[in-house]
């Protein structure tokens, strides 16, 4: 379990980093915390001649309030995300999801950008990004562009980024008013990838109807999933008339590519997924309700 030899690069700027990526092409891989990449290298499941460590680039650091939301640098560690007051104020779903990411040693090294760019459907941050309509700031040798989360996640461990592009930061818009958030996951053990999980945000209006809601699904397809039809069915309804079990069923209804593996068949994942959605919905609604009754 020793990796094959590679050259290590630690560029100081985004421009240097993308120039390296462009120059080295397929022989290079971005190293952004290494909590997935390094084990794969050590097991020789993959090999790269060059690793470009982006964690020392100043532009990729820090958490800033921006346009009522929060912008998180791609190299910000999970541990920082989980303890940031700015994140907790603007995107509580991320704060709630963070303790479920691996173990604390992993959260001390792993980065938000690394997790999102790795695009594992069983990971917590990609689903949160999708649910919260986060936007991805991306750099390439020819300039910058921004993608929505929906555009960003294209397939299993695959994003819309080109090989010479890198993720610089992610912006999460804030939810205002009477909003509530909850994350529910079921895994074999604490810290394992979830068998299924749900990240729910809900905003109630002054009459306790659902003003808007968002459901991010974990480990229920090749990408993080978002059951938009289910969300649409719930908006406008009095929250007291919504059976959480129905929310779970609705959320599972549109899923077409639930995976089967050693930890669970597709049918079982749907059963667990529906329960996680129902439980997260219940807690998110309770959280929203504490924001001041109508």
């Amino acid at each position: 379990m020793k990796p094959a030899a590679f050259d290590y690069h630690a560029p100081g700027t985004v421009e240097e980093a993308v120039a390296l990526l462009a120059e080295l092409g397929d022989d290079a891989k971005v190293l952004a915390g290494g909590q997935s990449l390094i084990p794969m290298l050590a097991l020789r499941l993959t090999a790269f001649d060059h690793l470009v460590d982006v964690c020392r680039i100043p532009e990729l650091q820090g958490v800033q309030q921006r346009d009522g939301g929060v912008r998180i640098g791609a190299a910000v560690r999970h541990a920082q995300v989980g303890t940031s007051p700015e994140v907790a104020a603007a995107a509580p779903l991320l704060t709630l999801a963070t303790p479920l990411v691996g173990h604390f040693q992993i959260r001390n090294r792993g980065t938000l950008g690394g997790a999102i760019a790795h695009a594992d459907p069983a990971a917590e941050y990609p689903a949160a990004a999708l649910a919260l309509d986060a936007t991805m700031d991306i750099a390439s040798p020819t300039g910058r562009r921004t993608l929505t989360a929906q555009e960003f996640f294209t397939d299993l461990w695959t994003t819309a980024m080109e090989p010479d592009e890198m993720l610089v930061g992610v912006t999460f818009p804030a939810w205002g008013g009477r909003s509530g958030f909850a994350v529910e996951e079921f895994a074999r053990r604490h810290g394992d990838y979830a068998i299924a999980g749900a990240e729910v945000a809900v905003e109630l209006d002054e009459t306790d109807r659902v003003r808007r809601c968002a459901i991010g699904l974990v480990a229920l397809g090749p990408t993080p999933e978002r059951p938009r039809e289910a969300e649409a069915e719930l908006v406008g309804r009095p929250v007291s008339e919504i059976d959480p079990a129905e929310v779970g069923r609705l959320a599972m209804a549109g899923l077409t590519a639930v995976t089967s593996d050693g930890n669970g068949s597709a049918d079982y994942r749907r059963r667990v997924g529906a329960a996680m959605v129902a439980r997260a919905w219940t807690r998110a609604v309770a959280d929203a309700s504490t924001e001041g009754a109508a």
Partner: protein
Amino acid sequence: MTAAATGDGRVEAGGATRYAGTRIGRVEDPRLLTGRGTYVDDIRLPGMLHAVFVRSPVARGRILGIDASAALALPGVRHVFTAADLNPDVREQWHTSVGPKSPETPRPPLADTDVRFVGDPVALVLADDRYLAEDAAELVEVDYEQLPAVVDYTRAAQAQELVHEAHGSNVVGQLAGRPAATLADVFAGAAHVVTDTIHQQAHTAVPMEGRGMVVDYSASTGELTIHAATQAPHEIRLFCSRLLGLPEHRIRVLMRDTGGGFGQKVMVQRDEMALMLVARRAGAPVKWVEDRRENLLAAGMSRHEHADVSMAFDPDGLILAASIDFVSDCGAYPTPWPVGTSAAVGMLFPGPYRVPAASFTATTVYTNTAGRVAYRGPWQFETLAREVLLDNAAREMGMDPAELRRRNLLRTDELPFANPNGMTYDRITPLETFEQALEMLDYDAFRAEQARAREAGRYLGVGMSTYVEPSTPGYGSYATEAATIRIEPSGKVNVYIAGGSTGNSIETTVVQLTADVLGVAIEDVATIQGDTAVTGFGAGTAGSRSGSMTAGAVRDTATILRERMIAIAAHKLEAAPEDIELVRSRASVRGVPGASVTVAELAATAYFDPYSLPPGVPAGLEASARYTAETRSVWVNAAHVCTCEVDPVTGGVTLLRYIVSEDCGPMINPSVVEGQIAGGTVQGIGGALLEHLAYDEDGNPTATTFVDYLLPTATDVPVIEYGHIETMSGGPGGYKGVGEGGAIGAPPAVVNAVADALAPFGARITRLPLTPESLAALVPPEALR
């Protein structure tokens, strides 16, 4: 008798001072807890090369050719050895505890013509560092003709393909007790008969440190030094001397710290043989450290088995007969010959119950998977099968499972008791430990809580198990254990035992026991273990024998020195020997204040002033003795009680409380005893819920990292609560073995708790592990409101 703890941890009771029985802090802890243990990978010798195995990627196949030229061309790569290079050097190949005449599976150190499991060692690469060696291993081209593999052990006996063609069958062996047909009338006439087929999945020891070895041969002296991760340094030396034809006394095996063994490191396996064989050919010391992937691929598999089990009961629930037909998967290269251990499953199936009649068969089969190796309580399946069956019987009979056990458990007034397979139990307390565990839980209160929870839609359960196991084998190479004790000229004491720290705290208990017998302060005692150059032969850590056997060796050796010290002190103090007492490194005349001499003064006399010694007392204070076990085994028993909550939607299990009441006799160190119980229990919980060394239908292992091989973590295990009953064994100090029991008792307690929780759904659990999906499948969606 009243006892009071003193500042240094001794117990002063009735005027005597003892360290045994107290929670002395572990001698091992300062170095282990600060990360300064010395494991194989910490050994660094000048010029040392690093070994990596090329392993078979196919489960069954023929080796058509091996081309190592690309690997050898890589700078820094020194050797690539294959079977043709190494295997002809083998002289003899047998394990001491098994003997030369056992019908063993032929074990080529490196695969010669055939590979028989994924991970089978095919070639050994030596390079300047481990990275280079792994690079080179990838460049060794092995041409395989892949053949259909025997993977499903339940069909192996009928398979066309043979794992070992020369053996002529995939059945390794079969043993049987009383024929089942002779019990047919008992079963036919019984008020209740319960029958199940119970399956256990492959899982294994998974020590924190994998196997590993540094071999260092000196051509100029003809001496071979081996640093090994092992439970039995002397066995490595003996085995190696036979393997290489080197005289035993030219080999020295050293082990300071070993990061767990649990049975996996009792016996030399093929990979380690290959290391021994390269020692004389490498021209430099060679290190091999098994990484996690290799450990899960090739260090061995355990527990993969099933049985058809039945019990007959009278109308009151008293057991009339028990029957087990047991089949176990032994993989391609079991170590050792597995037939004997499989018979133990049959012999022990009646357990600590009043079972008047029993039958068994035990069948072992080869498959193209990792070989079966010992794992903490190797016959553990007897307890799993019996205790799960008893709970199913209780449910079928409408009887409380605690009451069913209570009616059948042996009482101390019935001992000794010969079980129907001829195992005679004595000095055990099955009923007492069981009642203690239930009382610690407050069983009735839990049942009431369970009923309230069910009304609220929550599913709690309680499971229990009891077992009796033979510890401390007293036959063959296991029958003796030696100690050498030197009270040095300064009065400081060194105890030399074969021992070796694999996590069983034998350094601590040896120091405690020695200080007690010699009457010296514990800080004056140190121990040197795990070095064959300075310790007498010992069979190592196996069969829950270290504490109880070493206690005998220490007692017999220290008694010699104690008598000698008393003789010298009596002579010096002009008192009668019977009036001398030894307390905290000082010999005093009882009842005469001020008449005393220190152990250091006694030692100085013994070494430096030999003409002042009393007549007949030899110079020096050094002694060696070898203790011989008085019985073939020392019985030890325990009861486990576990409670849990099961989420009926996800099938997730949360363990709530875990209680163990055990009787290992007097405890040398309760913290060590509880540590042993905890470790075994956690492994048993892992086996019941998580761990699975799985293969696909082609024989490819699917759990080769800790992403897929799931070990229990701190968050999966509740605080374990301990109850102790102390019944003296017939051996030294009354001590019994406690190393394995936790792993035996835990799996059925967990299974029974989960089954109890899901009883409202009519669930019956007969297959491990209890994955969430398998449990959820017991609860149909329509049952969930």
